Structure formats: structure tokens, C-alpha cells
């Protein structure tokens, strides 16, 4: 049942060292503020799960919080590599990073199966490619009607899901809109969840009868963090800081510039100060 609390309390109470955590967001609504709090609290030995790990996961990896990553595409979209991820995979710095790699189709199906409380998902994929040779979790079942062999993937059931949403009402129901990605599935698949929101409203008011809403009884903690998706975006609140994404390439390329940036902007900063950049266009990175 959704409980309103501070960001630090939410991360303290819901995420423990060694757990698996999915901080989802498909370009839109990436939970940067919550992820930065995880870094400030210095959680260790995490398994991080995400279809499209981007800068936030680069930061978690570069700060040495991560033992394993489950993913399907790891890059800085439209810009290039995640240098901290590459440093971990190619050089074991700051520590070895285990990868469990899937395709997007597999990950999307695996979240869906998790939300549906199934142990695995079936899909038509991985035809003629090499990933099944290096990922033993890619298996198959035979259709009991047609004999067709289809690919399978284990359901994703994270210990904790962390997402950023547009609005919560005072009862703790949460509304998403726009590019909704796999966030609803991630929350429903997880054992507990933290949701940061742009705004808390008395009531959602007039809306589509089919609005994407997570009822309060599906959520662990709700935290009010305006700007909590910055430098990603929150539809109707602020735009994606594309310049930040472009600028990140130079920051993350070297270990020293990365460490300095993290110290100044995350470790020694408050959640509000970084998130606040969402509303002061252009002065970031």
C-alpha cells in the first residue's frame, strides 16, 4: 500500500545491498533523482535491470554499486557509448560487471510475464543469431498444437522497481501518460516499488477512461520529486535535456572527470538541486 515518504527514507526502507532493482523508463520518465539517492546511500552489489540502460546506469556502474546488469541495449541514445559501462566490461574498472543480455523483445516479454505472475514468457525471436550461445537463460518451448519451437525468457521479478511518474493523487494512486514504456509492468512484477512523481494532486480529475494508472495497493513508496526525471523528461512538465546527454560523453569518457562530476552533482548535492535543473533550461552539463 502506497506510503508517502522522503526520497532518502524510501531508498533506505525499500532497497538493500545485493538486491535486484529495475529503474525503468524508455527515454521518458527515467528516475534519475531516485537513482542518485541510491548512489548517495552507497548501496552495494546490486543487480540492475533495464531494457535501455543509459546515463543513470552508467553512473551506478561507474560508482561501483553494481555486480550484474540485465539489459538489452546499453548506450547513450543518439550519442554513443556508455564509457563507464565499457570500462567495467572491458577493463573490470571499478569492478567486474556481469552481463545478462537479451533483446528488447525478450526483455519486454519478460517484464510482461513478471507482471502476469508467470515464470517465463514465450515469443518468436532470436532466429539465426548468436546471443542464445552466450546466454543460457535463452531457452525454448514447443507449441503443443503446431510443433513450432519458440524462444523463452525467464520472467523478470525484481526485488524493487523504481520509476518516475507524472502524478499521484492523495490516496497514492499513480498516473503515467505518454511514452509509458515498461514501467507499469516493472512495478507489477517487482516485490516492492518506489515511485517518484512530478506532482501530487487531490484528484486526477477528468481523464481517459483507460488512463494508465497504478492503484495505490500496487505501490510501496511515493516520493514527491519535481524534476525527478531530469535530464530525461516528464511529458507536459519539462523537455528532455538533449544537450546534457550530448555533454555526458565527454564527462564519462575519463575516470577522473566522471568522479569529479559525480562528487559535485550527486554525492555532495541534494536530490532537489540536480532535479531543479529541469526547470532552469540549459545550464546543465
Amino acid at each position, binding site marked *: 500500500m502506497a506510503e508517502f515518504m522522503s526520497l532518502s527514507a524510501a531508498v533506505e526502507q525499500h532497497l538493500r545491498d545485493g538486491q535486484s532493482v529495475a529503474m525503468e523508463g524508455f527515454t*521518458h520518465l527515467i528516475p534519475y533523482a531516485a537513482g542518485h539517492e541510491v548512489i548517495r546511500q552507497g548501496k552495494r552489489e546490486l543487480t540492475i535491470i533495464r531494457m535501455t540502460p543509459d546515463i543513470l546506469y552508467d553512473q551506478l556502474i561507474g560508482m561501483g554499486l553494481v555486480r550484474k546488469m540485465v539489459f538489452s541495449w546499453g548506450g547513450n541514445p543518439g550519442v554513443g557509448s556508455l564509457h563507464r559501462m565499457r570500462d567495467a566490461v572491458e577493463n573490470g574498472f571499478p569492478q567486474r560487471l556481469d552481463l545478462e543480455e537479451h*533483446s528488447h523483445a525478450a526483455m519486454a516479454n519478460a517484464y510482461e510475464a513478471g507482471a502476469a505472475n508467470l515464470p517465463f514468457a514465450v515469443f518468436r525471436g532470436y532466429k539465426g543469431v548468436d546471443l542464445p550461445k552466450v546466454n543460457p537463460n535463452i531457452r525454448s518451448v514447443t507449441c503443443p498444437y503446431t510443433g513450432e519451437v519458440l524462444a523463452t525468457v525467464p520472467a523478470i521479478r525484481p526485488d524493487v522497481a523504481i520509476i518516475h511518474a507524472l502524478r499521484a493523487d492523495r490516496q497514492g494512486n499513480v498516473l503515467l501518460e505518454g511514452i509509458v514504456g515498461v514501467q507499469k509492468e516493472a512495478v507489477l512484477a517487482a516485490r516492492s516499488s518506489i515511485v517518484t512523481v512530478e506532482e501530487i494532486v487531490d484528484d486526477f480529475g477528468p481523464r481517459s477512461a483507460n488512463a494508465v494508472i497504478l492503484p495505490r495497493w500496487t505501490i510501496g513508496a511515493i516520493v514527491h520529486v519535481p524534476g525527478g526525471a531530469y535530464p530525461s523528461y516528464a511529458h507536459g512538465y519539462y523537455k528532455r535535456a538533449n544537450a546534457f546527454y550530448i555533454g555526458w560523453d565527454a564527462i564519462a569518457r575519463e575516470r577522473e572527470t566522471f568522479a569529479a562530476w559525480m562528487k559535485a552533482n550527486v554525492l555532495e548535492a541534494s536530490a532537489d538541486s540536480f532535479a531543479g535543473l529541469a526547470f532552469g533550461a*540549459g545550464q546543465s552539463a
Partner: protein
Amino acid sequence: MSYSPTEIMTIVASRFLRTSDICFVGIGAPSAACNLARLTHAPGITLIYESGTLGTRPDVLPLSIGDGELCDTALTTVSVPEMFRYWLQGGRITLGFLGGAQIDCFGNLNTTVVGDYANPKVRLPGGGGAPEIASSCGEVFIIMAMNPRAFMAKLPFITSMGHGAGKGSREALGLSTKGPTRLITDLCLFEPDPETSELIVTAIHPGVTREMIQAQCGWPVHYAAQVGLTPAPTDNELAVLRDLQARTKQAHAA
């Protein structure tokens, strides 16, 4: 008007797009080519980005696959699981686009690793949607600038399947989709040889020689019996493309 290699690559790709196509669009050159087609000869083309946006009509090109612009201009936006289940796997997409770090002569692509998978020399981003785009779309266009480290005789890793080991490979896996029907580069156009499914050159861009093509390709390039000459970009194509890119650059600097 003069033009860059990237410009002619994008423009050539756009010319092959039909107003009836339902395209699964990737970021970068595919996105530019699709929107150029939409703004010129294929106004009815349906563009789908894997972030869930169906029938989107962006005014500027997205930097990422899930920019707000895509959602604002879409017919509707679905969840990512639905996108991969009902729309891609559902067989609704007539045309998919792929690019990659490395390609072989059958249009197989590598975007996963250079070197050994467990101890890679270069860790690339990974497959993302590519493995199932390659198998589920009616046909696939690949857009890549040529260079000999990218156009390889043998790939270290197959991320997405083109024509596999050649003619019949796709059918043997039960695939009824066409796979790569065009490889559009900055120097020329490749299409699969009907006999072997090897990608062979069917048209050469203005000012490009066969020697220049071979110099940028790690496999021995073969040519169709009749090799065409790519018509140069028209002033209108270049103007629309540059206008789109200028709007995009301005928007992304924000």
C-alpha cells in the same frame, strides 16, 4: 547542389519508401530517411518507433527513440510490451531499418561485441530491437557508411540475421519474411543476388568508382549484370533534408 556522403545515403534510402509502408524506424539515418520521405513523396507513410509511438509525424528528428516529439505527434502511444507483441511480432510492420557496427556480405549485423563475447575488445551497445526487427518485419533496409573495418568478411558475433549463410538460410529457420532487401551506403546500393542472397552492388552513386567501393569493403564485392547510376540528390530533396536537420540541431541544442 553539392552534397555529403551521408546526405546521398539518406536521400537514396528515402526514395525507396512508399506511402503505404508501415515502418519500424530506428534513430539516426533511418529516422532521417523516413521523415524525408514523409515530407516529400510519401506523405502517408506510417512511422513507428519502438518506444511505442504509432503513426508519428515529428517536426524535428528525435535524438532518442522516445523523445516527446514522437508521442505528441503520434496517432497513439502503446506500452513497450504491446509494441513488441502486437505490432512487431504481430507481423504488422512492412519495413524495418537496421544499422550496425559491422556487416557481412549476407547482411548479417553485429552490434554486440568486437572480440570475444566474454572478454570483448570493444563492448558495443547490444542488439536492442534488432534481432526481432530482422525476423519479423516484411523486409529490412540497412543503412551504413562503408569502411573496411565495418564491412567484414566474417563477423565476430551475429546480433541480427540477414540472409544467414546465404540463400535458403532464412527459410530453413521457418522465416517467411524477406530479410534485407537493400543495403544503402554512402557509395552505392547493394541488393541480394537472387541466386545466392549475397549483397551485390546494383547502383553506384555519382562520382564513385568500383575501386573506391572495394577499398571500403572487407569482402570481394560483386556486381549485378546491369549496374545503375544513382540519380544525384535533387535540389528539393537536399533542401527538405537540410531544413529538417537544421530544425533538429536547433531543437537538440536546447
